């Protein structure tokens, strides 16, 4: 059996041993220690916390997991879904919370692009990362999970693109869990002024023993006039506990296209936060969720307009089978200074079973007076008349349902500009559709 050694329980001894085994700069150790303090001071969130009202984690036992240790034995890495037919600018793999390997194209390295293991690069490029890492787009104080992440993240990825460099080959990372492992991975992306890049990330499980614990965070800084396309596919197996804080700061005249696919995990509680900090920033977020069994996926999105003349467009679509459940809570926040904001948020849900349930809670908080903000949500069922219409044209019932579900997501596929992503997401969704009762 392959496993990262793991001492159960996030104890003081384990944390001290973890810190002393790492050779990190003082500023980083300080940040870890203050996060550890926050971790010790609070309880896991409960149902009295507004964000957790609909998300019950009483069955989650934090003490049955621990800080990932060194990898031993053979490493099984699943085949990635997002990269078929794509020439990559760099590739990285992690397994049970430890880095396996990274590679980066020479021509990009020559232009100063950094892509690799975050822990190692934080040592090698300490002063470069200091203003950003665990600081600019991450807050350890958000809750016990973010505090745990801030203190104990063991591995992660850095993508740094210097000013003016346009990388036309996507970077890709795959994070795998096996045998009930723990992944506390951190992703830090910094695009300096006028640079361009595409990053594809995906998660998966291998091995016969399912389950695990993911407590991750993403910090992305898109500098002025920079352009980032970011794809995240969450495909953990259906016994993984998945907690994640993801934040992007987008500067003036910069753009972000973020496509998110959420298929996996037993329970997910994810915060996706985009801050538009410079005038003229443009953000498009495309979220797709497809749940089955007893999965529970909870997504909290926040589009925060700090600067004027920015545009944000969030579209989330979820299809639900069996007794699964999704919660989507969206918020458009417009500061007083953010005049001429154009904000849009929408969540559409398609129920494929009478026992599935989708909660949509859109919200607006607007202080500026010259803005255009719209939001909406719909929940519908697969229409029997539609199925009959397709059947009358020779489609089997299964084919009809698959087609209707794919059609439901088409609006999102149309917005995805990367072919391999569109195809792999489409295929993953089509594979999931089962008989509709």
């Amino acid at each position: 059996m392959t496993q990262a050694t793991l001492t159960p329980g996030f104890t003081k001894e384990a944390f001290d041993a973890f810190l002393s085994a790492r050779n990190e700069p003082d500023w980083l150790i300080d940040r870890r220690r203050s996060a550890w303090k926050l971790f010790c001071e609070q309880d896991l969130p409960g149902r009295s916390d507004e964000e957790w009202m609909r998300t019950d984690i009483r069955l989650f036992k934090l003490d049955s997991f621990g800080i990932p240790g060194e990898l031993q034995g053979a490493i099984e890495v699943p085949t990635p879904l997002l990269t078929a037919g794509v020439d990559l600018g760099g590739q990285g793999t992690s397994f049970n919370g430890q880095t396996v390997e990274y590679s980066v194209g020479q021509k990009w390295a020559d232009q100063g692009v950094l892509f690799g293991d975050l822990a190692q690069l934080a040592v090698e490029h300490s002063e470069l990362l200091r203003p950003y890492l665990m600081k600019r787009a991450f807050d350890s104080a958000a809750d016990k999970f973010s505090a745990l992440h801030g203190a104990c993240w063991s591995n992660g990825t850095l993508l740094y693109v210097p000013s003016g460099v346009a990388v036309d080959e996507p970077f890709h990372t795959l994070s795998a869990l096996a045998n009930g492992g723990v992944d506390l991975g951190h992703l830090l992306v910094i695009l300096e002024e006028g640079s361009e890049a595409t990053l594809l990330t995906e998660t998966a499980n291998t091995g016969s023993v399912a389950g695990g614990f993911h407590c991750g965070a993403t910090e992305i800084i898109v500098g002025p006039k920079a352009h980032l396309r970011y794809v995240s596919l969450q495909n953990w197996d259906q016994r993984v506990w998945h907690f994640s804080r993801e934040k992007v700061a987008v500067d003036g005249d910069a753009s972000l296209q973020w496509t998110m696919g959420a298929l996996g995990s037993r329970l997910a509680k994810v915060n996706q936060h985009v801050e538009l900090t410079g005038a003229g920033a443009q953000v498009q977020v495309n979220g797709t969720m497809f749940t089955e069994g007893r999965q529970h996926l909870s997504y909290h999105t926040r589009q925060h307009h700090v600067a004027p003349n920015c545009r944000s467009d969030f579209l989330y679509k979820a299809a639900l089978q069996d007794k699964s459940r999704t919660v989507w809570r969206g918020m458009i926040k417009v500061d007083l200074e953010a005049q001429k904001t154009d904000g849009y948020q929408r969540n559409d849900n398609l129920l494929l079973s009478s026992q599935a349930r989708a909660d949509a809670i859109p919200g607006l908080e607007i202080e500026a007076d010259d803005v255009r903000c719209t939001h909406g949500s719909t929940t519908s069922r697969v229409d029997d008349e539609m199925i009959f219409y397709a059947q009358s044209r020779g489609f089997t019932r299964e084919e009809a349902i698959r087609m209707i579900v794919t059609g439901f997501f088409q609006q999102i596929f149309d917005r995805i500009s990367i072919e391999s992503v569109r195809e792999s997401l489409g295929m993953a969704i089509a594979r999931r559709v089962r008989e509709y009762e």
Partner: protein
Amino acid sequence: MPDILKIENLHVAVAGKPILKGVDLEIRRGQTHALMGPNGSGKSTLGLAIMGHPGYEATAGGITLNGDELLDMEADERARRGIFMAFQRPLSIPGVKMSDFLRHATTNVRNPDRKEGEELIPMREFRKELKAKMGRLQMDTEFARRYVNDGFSGGEMKRAEILQLAMLQPKFAILDETDSGLDADAVRLASQSIAEIGREKMGLLIITHHDKLLEHNPPDFAHVMLGGRIVETGGTELAEELHSQGYERIREKYPEADADNQQMVAKDAVTNM
């Protein structure tokens, strides 16, 4: 022997409510039948029952195609056997392109034994055929890229139904008020197109309140439905009589069926309130 679609003593209920009360009808491939009758008499119900809508339950009788019972088959199997219906109210399927929909449908109907996941008919071949058929219906090829019936005008939907008929080349086709919603020129074109698709290759059941669609498709038989029964069958002259004079004579001659019809329609008025 030509193919035969045979409806015998068919009783159909919708949501437990009896609608068809013993319909007999035999259509041979190559024949054109007109089905007329006042609103709510059960014409669409008959079509939907033949096509296999799961909400239309046959409580007695049968529908056979060359002796095989269709009532035991789901709608898709009937389609693969060569049954087609152009709907009075076609459904839209958002996000699904007309061309993708039709390519899949055409493949399934032409290869009735195809299993899900097997090859579709080659793209080039399909596109060529689709383009030619759209041309003949004077449809802009742009429609192939639009989502199935999504945002189509009433007339565009009906034209798209005829396009599907042309692509699927069924043995038997039920056209349910395919002329409604079409302007005068479009009806003429539809009528011609149906004739061109090949009246002689299909058994046609044309449900209509007008005579325009029959212009190029003179019926061999005309049937009048009232109160869930076919009360009278004749030739073109019957269709012409009903078009010019309405259902007065029929209602008087078949008071029982007329009472049933009025009751059905009255119930609707109550439930629609």
